[in-house]
């Protein structure tokens, strides 16, 4: 197995927020915390694009580098997790993260920040697998049950896919090949380069050919 990764296909996302709902329901995420969210660029304009955004479990995660108490760790599958018992809620990881993934629950009447909460790739945390303590702090551990993240498995258009990097690459290659045959070739998947780097083998990608929004009709 290579590494666990997310891939969001902006050509397919229809902004249904099914992934957001699945995540909230699966992990019983408290009000005000969104481990996953859908961002739409040029909303309402022809050619708009939506992306499902959460922790991308980066290869060289900046949150790990800036954490003053070193509460982050990476599993052998490449999932970036953290120990909530150690987190002090300083918010450094939020400023370092290029995806805005770290979330902080409001724990007091004066907006006091609680311990950081983020997507766990449905892999729980440093508590016994499947225990009530793990569920309360980190949510359900689907990975230990042989399942993929709920957001990806719930996605109706399969815009958001998750799993082993080799498998994702094969799935995306199939899609790009079919799109190229149709003449609607898209660009590289959003967030992929920022999270996992371009690598030595990957040449610079040409800019995506997106349909241009039509010019507004002159008012008569």
């Amino acid at each position: 197995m290579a590494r666990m990764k997310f891939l969001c296909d902006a050509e397919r996302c229809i902004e249904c927020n099914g992934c957001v709902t699945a995540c909230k329901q699966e992990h019983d995420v408290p009000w005000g915390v969104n481990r996953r969210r859908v961002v739409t660029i040029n909303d309402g304009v022809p050619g708009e694009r939506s992306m499902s955004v959460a922790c991308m479990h980066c290869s060289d995660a900046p949150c790990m580098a800036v954490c003053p108490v070193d509460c982050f760790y990476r599993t052998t599958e490449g999932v970036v997790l953290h120990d909530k018992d150690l987190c002090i809620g300083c918010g450094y990881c939020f400023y370092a993260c290029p995806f805005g993934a770290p979330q902080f629950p409001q724990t007091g009447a004066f907006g006091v920040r609680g311990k950081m909460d983020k997507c766990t790739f449905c892999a729980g945390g440093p508590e016994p697998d499947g225990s009530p303590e793990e569920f309360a702090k980190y949510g359900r551990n689907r990975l230990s049950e042989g399942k993929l993240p709920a957001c990806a498995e719930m996605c109706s258009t399969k815009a958001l896919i998750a799993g082993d990097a080799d498998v994702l690459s094969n799935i995306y290659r199939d899609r790009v090949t079919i799109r190229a045959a149709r003449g609607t070739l898209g660009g590289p998947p959003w967030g992929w380069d920022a999270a996992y780097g371009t690598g030595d083998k990957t040449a610079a990608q040409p800019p995506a050919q997106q349909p241009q929004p039509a010019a507004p009709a002159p008012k008569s």
Partner: protein
Amino acid sequence: MSRLAVVGIALAATFVLAACSERPQVVNYKQGKYAGKPDTPAYQNAPYNGDKAAWERALATRAQAQNEYQRIK
């Protein structure tokens, strides 16, 4: 020039030029060592009980369900 003046100039230069010895201000981020509780691998406990190969097969099978081109062939 008297010896006293030379010593005075040397002392003054020591204090005045002390600011010229600035340290580099570029921060070098280093990942620290994880300080939290240890975690077990995902396949360690039931239902896989340490059978990593079976766990990987289950995930690979599950991942293929995300490829509808594979399913409709």
